[in-house]
Every structure is written in structure tokens, then in C-alpha cells.
């Protein structure tokens, strides 16, 4: 029998308690869990880019937010006329992918910090559009988005049904990302991250690979955004703002860049932190900022990454193999 890879094994192991969540609403609130799952999926999508391709996007809120707007607007207008919720989600993903194509085409023309600055600037346009276009609700956003019926049968307005749906989408999203990362395409992405000139010299069309990775990441971020709009039944300006791009970056960094479970751990931590600290205002920003500083200065691998490194250290002590990863090795900066 072929052995199941560790990340997938963890997923299977966690599915058991996750399936039981609706049975104990007094311990974990299902809506909270759904929110965590949505942001976890968002962070996983983001990690596909920052962790495995080495591209730092400051514009992922554009995909997340606009997918939410699309799904929300469609459900509000047409769900009473029989629009299936699946189609609304697909439309959200399509919107995110299209925006991803636009931003991606422009951003991959530059590398490194320029790439980050371009994504930041372009997502700013996405934000201004959301403020100015009427149907997004501008400053007010959208409220009371109906969840519809899954396959026309299962009523999603029931929180438990919605929870299982969200969990299923998350699990499929996780498996899809796992599959992408471990496919030949994923290997090319890692090669690009670690040594772009070499990947070019080996004959890979790096621009196309980067664009595909960017669009994939945008599509999955869009899926998370659409799902989130259905779960919380609202879409707000906040979802397309820089703060959301920042949060997803923080989740991924905190959990561990380029690890398969790190983004999920980070998302769970950040979402629960927000729940408890919501009323503190400016202090939350300070805490988020300090977390960035501490992560970058002292544990660059993130929580899951440090854990893996510890296991690896223990392993290499027995086998005398050195460990190397991005957080400790020198960056290849041309001209330096």
C-alpha cells in the first residue's frame, strides 16, 4: 500500500474532531470555526505564492474581497429566482481569477520588492473601485447575504449544514493545494523560488509559471472569500483593504512560510486573537506589528516551521545531516 503523506494524514486525523464540532456548540461556536476555516483556506492560497513560489503579494485582499462581493451580490439579487449557490461561488472564483490575471500580468514583469509594491498599488485600485461602484454597497458593504440551498437540496441557512459544507470545501482546497505543491508544476515553482536564473537556464518559462501560480492562488483566495461572504452573510469594505492583505500575510508568517499546515495554525491563532481583542482598537494593530517583528527577528520559520526544524534537528543528530532552509541561508541577490 502506498503510504499517505504526513500533511494529508494530519488532515484526516483532524477531520474526526472537526466533524464533531456541531455536536458541542457550547465548546466551539460553529460560526467561529467556519470563519477560521475560511481564513485558513485564504492563508493556504496565499502560502502557495509566498511560501512555494517566493512571491510576496500585498494585494490578496483584492481577490478575497471581490469574490465575496460577487457571490454576495449574486445571492442577494438572484437567489430568490433560483440561482444555485454553487454558481454564485464559481462566479466569485471567476472574478478573483480574472483580477488575478490582471494584477499578475502586470506584477510579474518585475521581481522582488517591486513585485510587492506593484501588487500593493494595484490592490489599491481594487479598493477605490469597491468604494465607488454602487453595487458593492460602498462604505456600508453588503448585509444579509442569503446562503441558498446546496445542490438545491440542503438548506445552508442552518449553521450546522453550512459548517459541514465549509469543512468539505476546506478539505478539498487543502488537498488541491497539497496536490499542486507536490506536482511537477509545484517543483518548478520551488525551483523558481530558490534559484530563478537556473530555472530559466533549464528552459522553464518562468513568467508563465509565475502567472499560473498567481492565478491559482487568486482563485483559491477567491473561493475562501466567497465562502466567507456566505458564512458571515456579509461583505464589507474591510475585505478589500490592505488590512486583510496584512492579516493573511501575518497568518502565513506566524504559522510558517512554505509549510503545509502553518497557514492553518496561523489563521486559527489570528482569528481567535481578533475575537478576543476586537474592542481594543489601536492596540490590536500594535500587537500585530509586534508579532511581525518578533516572527521576523526570532523565529522566521513560523510555528509549524520551527516545530519541523526541531524534529529535523533531532533526526539529523542521529544521522549527521545538516539542515538548510530559506530562513537560515543567504539570499541570492544579484549584484550583491
Amino acid at each position, binding site marked *: 500500500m502506498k503510504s499517505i503523506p504526513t500533511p494529508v494524514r494530519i488532515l484526516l486525523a483532524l477531520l474526526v474532531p472537526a466533524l464533531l464540532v456541531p455536536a458541542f456548540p457550547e465548546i466551539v461556536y460553529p460560526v467561529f470555526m467556519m470563519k477560521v476555516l475560511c481564513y485558513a483556506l485564504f492563508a493556504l492560497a496565499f502560502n502557495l505564492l509566498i511560501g512555494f513560489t517566493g512571491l510576496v503579494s500585498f494585494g490578496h485582499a483584492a481577490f478575497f474581497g471581490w469574490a465575496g462581493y460577487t457571490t454576495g451580490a449574486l445571492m442577494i439579487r438572484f437567489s430568490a429566482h433560483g440561482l444555485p449557490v454553487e454558481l454564485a461561488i464559481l462566479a466569485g472564483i471567476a472574478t478573483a481569477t480574472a483580477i488575478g490575471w490582471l494584477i499578475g500580468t502586470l506584477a510579474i*514583469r518585475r521581481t522582488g520588492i517591486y513585485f*510587492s*509594491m506593484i501588487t*500593493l498599488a494595484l490592490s489599491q485600485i481594487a479598493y477605490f473601485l469597491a468604494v465607488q461602484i454602487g453595487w458593492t454597497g460602498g462604505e456600508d458593504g453588503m448585509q444579509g447575504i442569503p446562503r441558498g440551498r446546496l445542490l438545491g437540496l440542503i438548506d445552508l441557512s442552518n449553521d450546522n449544514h453550512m459548517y459541514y459544507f465549509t469543512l468539505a470545501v476546506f478539505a478539498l482546497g487543502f488537498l488541491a493545494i497539497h496536490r499542486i505543491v507536490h506536482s511537477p508544476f509545484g517543483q518548478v515553482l520551488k525551483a523558481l523560488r530558490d534559484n530563478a536564473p537556473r530555472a530559466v537556464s533549464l528552459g522553464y518559462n518562468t513568467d508563465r509559471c509565475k502567472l499560473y501560480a498567481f492565478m491559482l492562488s487568486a482563485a483559491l483566495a477567491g473561493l475562501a472569500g466567497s465562502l466567507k461572504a456566505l458564512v458571515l452573510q456579509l461583505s464589507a469594505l474591510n475585505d478589500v483593504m490592505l488590512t486583510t492583505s496584512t492579516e493573511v500575510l501575518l497568518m502565513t508568517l506566524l504559522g510558517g512560510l512554505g509549510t503545509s499546515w502553518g497557514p492553518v495554525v496561523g489563521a486559527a491563532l489570528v482569528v481567535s486573537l481578533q475575537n478576543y481583542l476586537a474592542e481594543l482598537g489601536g492596540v490590536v*494593530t*500594535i500587537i500585530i506589528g509586534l508579532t511581525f517583528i518578533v516572527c521576523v527577528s526570532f523565529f522566521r520559520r513560523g510555528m509549524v516551521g520551527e516545530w519541523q526544524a526541531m524534529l529535523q534537528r533531532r533526526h539529523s543528530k542521529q544521522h549527521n545531516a545538516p539542515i538548510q532552509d530559506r530562513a537560515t541561508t543567504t539570499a541570492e*541577490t544579484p*549584484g550583491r
Partner: protein
Amino acid sequence: MFDISMQALAAQLLVGLINGCFYAMLSMGLAIIFGLLNIINFAHGAQFMVAAFLAWIGFAQLPLLLGPEFKVNFWAALVLAPLLVGGLGILLEKTLLKRLYHLDHLYGLLLTFGVALVLEGAFRHFYGISGVSYDPPALLQGGVDLGFMFLPVYRGFVVVASLLICVVTWYLFEKTRLGALLRAGTENPKLLQAFGVNIPLMITLTYGFGVALAGIAGVMAAPLMQINPLMGSNLLNIVFAVVVIGGLGSILGAIATGLALGLLEGLTKVFYPEASTVVVFVIMALVLLLRPAGMFGKEK
């Protein structure tokens, strides 16, 4: 198109020119820092904001706290606030930033981004988001009628002073021995160190200088804009677009691009106000399509 009065056009161009001056000063600072440290200073906007707040605190709060003889006027603030902010920048470089130079540039970016969040959060916590206002110094109040437009003296001062700062900085970097050393450091720090130049010190001071430039801009902006915790990051978003257009390679490029885009933004406000918030970003997109390496582009 001809129903727009000369008066309105001139006024918007002046606003655009002033914005352009700030874009120029900030992107110049970013370029200087990037040249030697190889990081993009995401805290630049926050440092700009802190300087503006410091000017206001010195003027409005210190006298209440310590007595009227501690009142810091605009001119003193113009010197003190940048020194203070630059000093804090040096501290940041010495303690945290310098540990990241051997790593992927991603980490420097994330660290300065964290610093920006901490600064913004702290000022938001203490002063709220609505902000405070600051009057121009007595010497520069009032205005002059130029015939075709009314020019507030302070605005004129800001344009002249910031252009002066740009020119002096450019001169310093391109025409003096110190500048030659700095440029050599940008080109090949290891070789320069072998010649006995103290590179770590040079890097520290460069970061301090770049931050102080943001500080000067911040104090000059204080009487023009509402001082609030987000004033810097709002500006920095545009400055990033400016930097993408102009590139971080040359100081003159940063100055020229900043001024040009400010003026263009002003013009857009006259002819098509709806687009004025995005015009810089749209131009950035166009430049990326037509000249991927930027207007003055040579990519590192």
C-alpha cells in the same frame, strides 16, 4: 474644457506640485535606503507620520505638560523632529534590521512593515483616528496675490524648501566624496570595506538619513494635511507606485518622477476628478506594460 478657470487650474497645479514635492522627498529617501541596505523601508510612511505628530506634540502638548518655555515652534521642530525620528531609525537599524541583511529581502520588508504597524497602532491608541491640526508658523502665514492666482505663503515655502532639499541631497550623493563612497557602497560593499571604509557605520547612518528625510517631509506636511496616524501609509501607497515607475536606481529619477506624477495628479483633479485617486496607479500599470523596467530602469 475651456470652462475651467485659470484660477482653478493654477490652484490644482499648485496642490499637485506640493504633493509631487512630498512624493519626491519620500521616494528619494526610499531610493537612498534601498541603494545601500537593499531593503524597501515599509516604515517610511509611519516615520513621516511620527515626525508630523512630534511637531504637533512639541507645539501643543509639551507647553501644557512642562510649562510654556518648552514650546517647540515650527522651525525648531523642523530640525528636532527629523533628528529624533532619524535617531529612532538608527536604533532600529542597529538592533533589528542589521540582523536581516544576509537573508532574503522579504524579511527586511516584513520587519519594517511590522514597525509601521506598531507606530500607527500606538498613535491611533493615544490620539484616535480623527487627527489634529497644526497652524503654519506666523512668519509664513497669509498669502500673496500673483495676479493669476492666490498663493498662500506657506505653500510656496514648502515647494521651495523641498526642491532645495532634493537638490542638496542630489548634490551630496552625486557630486561629493561622501556621495562617491555611498555610491561605491551601493555598487560593491565588500570591495569598499577592503579599502578600509566602515561599511556597517555607513549603512546605519544612511538609514538614519533616509528616515530623517521622511521626518523633514513629515514636519513640512504637518500644517498642510490633517495629522492622523494613517497620513503616512496613505501617502506611501502612492509613493510605492512612483517608485515602481521611476525605479530606485537614481535620486534624480526619484525626484523627477515624484514631481511629474504630483502635477499629473493635480491636472487629473481639474479635468476628471473621479480618476484622481487612481491616476498614479493607472500610469504605473501603463509603464509596466510599455517599459517593464521603469522609466529610468535598470533593475537590480
